[in-house]
């Protein structure tokens, strides 16, 4: 029963985490719709060279219904009857973006990437050193292959066996982590070593 509760709690935790993330991104999107940055909308008119005027690009922050040549091109480089001919060649497009969404997304992505890299460095470099220092002398049963094994999670089996005896929350987390490491090791063997799956 306890394991069911624990599994359920873990599941609930991951659900809350993921849905919280998704909802926060969506919420930010809605917030940006509500409080649109002044610079986030524009009407962009591209006008090609005409007679002796060089080509030019005009930007203006203007609503979508006013997004045409006459409102945006200021100052008008040609006069009188030429204005219509000039404006016929110009192409005006209304564009909007959400700078807040871009900023939030990139920063969230970089932080997740950074966390994963830190965790990877910890797992591959720091943890074996720590474990060897902590359990090095008392490891009479450690076989030679484990010492020379360069794969991450090489000592997952030993820690799994040891942690079964103790019972408190921190060791439950460690137990779950070791089980995950075993799974990843199995996956790595079938994908990278035996080439059974995903060749």
């Amino acid at each position, binding site marked *: 029963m306890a394991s069911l509760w624990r599994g359920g709690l873990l599941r609930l935790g991951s659900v809350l985490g993921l849905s919280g993330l998704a909802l926060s991104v969506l919420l930010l999107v809605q917030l940006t719709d509500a409080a649109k940055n002044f610079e986030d909308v524009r009407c962009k008119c591209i006008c*090609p060279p005409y007679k002796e005027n060089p080509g030019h690009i005009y930007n203006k922050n203007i609503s979508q219904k006013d997004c045409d040549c006459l409102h945006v091109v200021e100052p008008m480089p040609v006069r009188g009857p030429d204005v219509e001919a000039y404006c016929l060649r110009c192409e005006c497009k209304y564009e909007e973006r959400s700078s807040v969404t*871009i900023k939030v*997304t990139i920063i969230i992505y970089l932080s997740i990437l950074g966390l*994963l890299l830190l965790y990877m460095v910890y797992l591959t470099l720091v943890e074996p050193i720590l474990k060897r220092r902590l359990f090095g002398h008392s490891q009479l049963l450690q076989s030679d292959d484990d010492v020379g094994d360069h794969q991450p999670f090489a000592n997952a089996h030993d820690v799994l066996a040891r942690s079964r005896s103790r019972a408190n929350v921190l060791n439950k987390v460690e137990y779950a982590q070791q089980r995950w490491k075993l799974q990843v090791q199995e996956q790595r063997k079938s*994908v990278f070593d035996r080439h*059974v799956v*995903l060749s």
Partner: protein
Amino acid sequence: MDFLDEPFPDVGTYEDFHTIDWLREKSRDTDRHRKITSKSKESIWEFIKSLLDAWSGWVVMLLIGLLAGTLAGVIDLAVDWMTDLKEGVCLSAFWYSHEQCCWTSSETTFEDRDKCPLWQKWSELLVNQSEGASAYILNYLMYILWALLFAFLAVSLVRVFAPYACGSGIPEIKTILSGFIIRGYLGKWTLLIKTVTLVLVVSSGLSLGKEGPLVHVACCCGNFFSSLFSKYSKNEGKRREVLSAAAAAGVSVAFGAPIGGVLFSLEEVSYYFPLKTLWRSFFAALVAAFTLRSINPFGNSRLVLFYVEYHTPWYMAELFPFILLGVFGGLWGTLFTRCNIAWCRRRKTTRLGKYPVLEVIVVTTITAIIAYPNPYTRQSTSELISELFNDCGALESSQLCDYINDPNMTRPVDDIPDRPAGVGVYTAMWQLALALIFKIVITIFTFGMKIPSGLFIPSMAVGAMAGRMVGIGVEQLAYHHHDWIIFRNWCRPGADCVTPGLYAMVGAAACLGGVTRMTVSLVVIMFELTGGLEYIVPLMAAAVTSKWVADAFGKEGIYEAHIHLNGYPFLDVKDEFTHRTLATDVMRPRRGEPPLSVLTQDSMTVEDVETLIKETDYNGFPVVVSRDSERLIGFAQRRELILAIKNARQRQEGIVSNSIMYFTEEPPELPANSPHPLKLRRILNLSPFTVTDLTPMETVVDIFRKLGLRQCLVTRSGRLLGIITKKDVLRHMAQMANQDPESIMFN
């Protein structure tokens, strides 16, 4: 005997790398539904629970759509930024890509549309020079270094955290949806790592796409949400309905094509696709597309970077180059499939496969070194396709649109007549030719590496480049020789006859169809991408031609070929079995093999059964009345036998190794002081599928396909003769494929 009626814990779940039993899952779901319906009449709370159960399917679809759309938006935005990071950085806000950085700037001129002072290339930043040889070399070096960094990070993350995140994912998802179990393939770590590393590898400039991996990401979301509801988490058959819908949502956000996504899921990915799944997939695809649109990654309310919207007409005479493009697509598809499978087989069997990280680094270095000098390979493939699809108006400044303009031209913007090509166009043509050859070669080595890699975008790029070159060729031919008989009727001088962008689209569709052998879904995706129904006929012509040409060389698309390479037990619904063999030719045991391992109804002891299980590794055992009269009673699964015996030894008193195991309703007659017998009728499948020994294999294969069987028993006059498993069927089909169908008629 009450606790014998309790469900055994763990019975009903499947082991890793085994096939599910579709019929049992379906009957369990029917049982569950009947129980809920009958209980719903008892009280209001039960009624509400039954309503929630009915609605849980739609809730799951909504959640999948939301998460898939969000992840696709995050991926698009992050790829946009990181791709430009290889070339420079925005000084005002480092999180802006090149286009976003120059968005508000007023210093952009007509000639240098891309330049603005806020965004600087690496050479400007580091050594304060923007032109010249040293600046070029520095930019080149920084490009290669960034590409290497991204690729190395990606492959390390995949290797350390989630090895299942590599590859495209579509072959494995096809196999999973046909009933195979790969534990962890759709897990949370795979989802996280695939999303993060997908951004990294697409930004590193490698010749791969993100559409296939997005299907995998969406299916991981589907798996995650279906594990929250017991209706789907406990039933593998129902879960696969959710996964089919999730795959549709994945393609929908990849291409901005909801209908195309549903058809892709129906045609390519799913195995069983009931009508209920069709409606739910459409819902999930729409929610995903809507979520992506509200995130608005490309700043103009479009879902995909290369959405085009011109409506210039095409002419009947142009069908000839379109069909040529279809032939090119079919040939390229065959070439790519054969070479890629050969290379992947080499990676699987030789020492090349021992150095995955080194392989990724080498391929990235080669790609970056060759891609940088050519402007068409330096930019990201999506931008390249977008540029190739676009029609040239008077305002385009790209090299591809460097036509010689008539200075007196007064036509409005989108009705430019055909013009002679300028110098820029000729330069673009040979650069495109070089880029085409490069892309054809490098994609063969890139697809299948140990990083997330898709091949929709590279195939479309190859086709678009070929198509654009053909289009420009036809356009110039029509301009310079408008008095030839083929052009005279429809191409007057001064008219806008040929749209090279359309040729690029048709080429892209042809190449994609040649590689994946998609038919309807390809056409629908392409016309949802372009927004124009006028081009359905050219797209169909090219898709049909490329599929015919590619099928002439081999029946397998790239995904089926990878399934065969990996040896997954996938019984393809598209294969036709036309040989005249009989069930008795395929069944086990063959002549000369040891007899079938069977269990008897009530004469074996627990110890006998345990020995049998230990000595053999069969997944199940038929149960017969007795060894003399081999009349069939039912079929028992190995895993359930093991669990039941273990449970009985622990929980039930009196069960020892000498206890008789019986499968009948009433215990058999036993002498007085014999130990307590063990009743295992609960785990016995009393309705195993049987065929007679003279049933044609055509029918047997059909039964396996349509019902999703794992094994089928062969009887004659009621006596059990042998067993045919799905693996036997697959091996037999593979054997038959190498021989002439009419020549085998052995009995």
